[in-house]
């Protein structure tokens, strides 16, 4: 089977800074690929290449086996790659249905009378949100009044509705509480069940472990490892993520300091 998205030896430079070096990775349909890494590991640069915000300097990017290069987020979306950015996905003062269809509004009528099909937009939004388990009673409710998890759900539902084959989630749980994070993880699983390839960016291995089929760790712009589920346990994951030996060292030091003297 051809992978939905595959990168081969991709690198990215910002001036003389090597943001990413020789990254290879593939994402299959119906799988959650977790990209883990500490701050500065290159996670953001990596997804920005996949979502069309940046272009890679070296290597290849293949969508369903076909090599391509995205010139804009719109370009990536047209190829079926939708990105839900952490905090930049919705406009808080706009209503749920306006946000849902923002940039791809359904219209009726022709010429100067071309207008948004409000009824269709509202009904569709409610239907899609219901599939995610959220009952939006008032479609005119501003998105800002939803909880953080629900707002992520709006973005995910929107991406799924507009035919995304690959869903990239950029730290969807980082700003959320425990309960809300659980809600978002459920949406991740749901998107997978619907046959999407999900790329889940996070620095929280506790969020990644329960939902991931595959774990990729980045550190300082390089690929540290790539494991299938079952090939690695949670503790090992945490250790690899934070640079293994360094964490051992830290634990050692902390324990010594905290010991009663």
């Amino acid at each position, binding site marked *: 089977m051809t992978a939905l998205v595959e990168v081969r030896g991709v690198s990215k430079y910002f001036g003389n800074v090597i943001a990413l070096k020789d990254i290879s990775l593939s994402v299959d349909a119906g799988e959650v690929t977790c990209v883990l890494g500490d701050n500065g590991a290159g996670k953001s640069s990596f997804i920005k290449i996949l979502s069309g915000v940046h272009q890679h300097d070296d290597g290849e990017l293949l969508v369903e086996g076909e090599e391509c290069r995205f010139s*804009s*987020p*719109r370009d990536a*979306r047209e190829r079926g790659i939708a*990105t839900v*950015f952490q905090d*930049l*996905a*919705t*406009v*808080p*003062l*706009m209503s749920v249905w*306006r946000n849902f*269809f*923002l*940039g*791809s*509004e359904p*219209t009726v009528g022709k010429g100067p009378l*071309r*207008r*948004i099909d*409000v009824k269709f937009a509202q009904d569709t939004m409610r239907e899609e949100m*219901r*599939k*995610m*388990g*959220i*009952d939006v*009673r*008032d479609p*005119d*409710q*501003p998105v*800002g*009044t*939803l*909880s*953080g998890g629900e707002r992520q759900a709006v973005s995910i539902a929107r991406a799924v509705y507009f035919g995304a084959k690959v869903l990239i989630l950029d730290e969807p749980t980082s700003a959320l509480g425990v309960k809300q994070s*659980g809600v978002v*993880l*459920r*949406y991740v*699983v*749901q998107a997978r*069940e619907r046959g999407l390839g999900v790329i889940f960016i996070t620095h929280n291995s506790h969020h990644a*472990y*329960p*939902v991931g089929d595959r774990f990729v760790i980045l550190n300082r712009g390089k690929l540290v490892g790539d494991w299938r589920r079952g090939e690695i346990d949670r503790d090992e994951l945490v250790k690899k993520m934070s640079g293994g030996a360094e964490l051992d060292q830290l634990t050692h030091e902390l324990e010594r300091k905290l010991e009663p003297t």
Partner: protein
Amino acid sequence: MSSTADAALAPEPVADERLANIGLGARLMRRPEVGSLLGALVICAFFWLTTEPFGTLNGIANWTDVGSTIGIMAVAVALLMIGGEFDLSAGVMTGTTGLLMGLLTTEWGLSMWPAIVVTFAFAATVGFMNGYMVIKTKLPSFIVTLATFFVLQGVNLGVTKAITGTVRVAGLGDVPGYDSAFKLFGATFWAPHNFRLSVIWWIAIAALATWVLARTRAGNWIFAVGGDAEAARNVGVPVARVKIALFMTTAIAAALVGIMIALRLSSVQAGQGVGEEFTYIIAAVVGGCLLTGGYGSAIGASFGALIVGMAFIGIQFSGWNTDWRFLFLGVILLLAVLVNNLVRHRAEGARR
């Protein structure tokens, strides 16, 4: 956590109990224009009861006239503010465009209609430049258009003096085509009360803007670029194009008002329009537009302009010194900003 996978397959829609009591009242209060509508009613009632001429047809013709030229601009400025930008050159543009049309016709021999076309094209160009500079430099539009404001003010005075030797351009009434242009832009209707045609223009423009905002893709994009330009860009809204178009709309509206005023007086003062930009912004803010963008309405801005028009004429009818109108503008602006702030907090939610 492994049980989430099973639970996710058939999620039961959960009704949010916190949404249960959104009644008609709360729903109405969510509309940006409600405050200005109430304000307009109060002010109208006050002057209607305390002064004699305010409620007569002649009186109404009077304050709707004042409201109309402010209102046309306030609607355009409101769209721009919803889109997250300001235009401080909007006031002086009414002077620049009037003067340009005057000079083209009286000094350079163009007849009225070609001059009007050139004037609109000129305004569109200035609007484009405002927008382009704001987008390219990423500077606040406040500063960029403040510069445009002073440049235009200087040009207005300098060029007018250099060409005519005075600070006004006069004699538009003798230009060929004046009569037909006047019929469209400057005339009155319903004699003997003489309502201005500009009132009809205002209502039509406000209705069009409302429709655009509420029902078109462009309207959706205007809210989005003002509400969160980054989020809008991420979903594929052409942010730069929307903002530049809004600056052009504002400048073109200023040209319309400038042409209207020039035609009805058949002359233009070089200082025309200076200071008016704040009146437009006040009308838009009173109408519920947030200074931070992303929220507001064209109807609200029209009510705001109506409040200003009623107050100006009402103060005059009351026999007070007309200088008091500035105090009035200041007070209603402050009130409106306070109310808007409350609205925004409720709409955005405390979590952000």
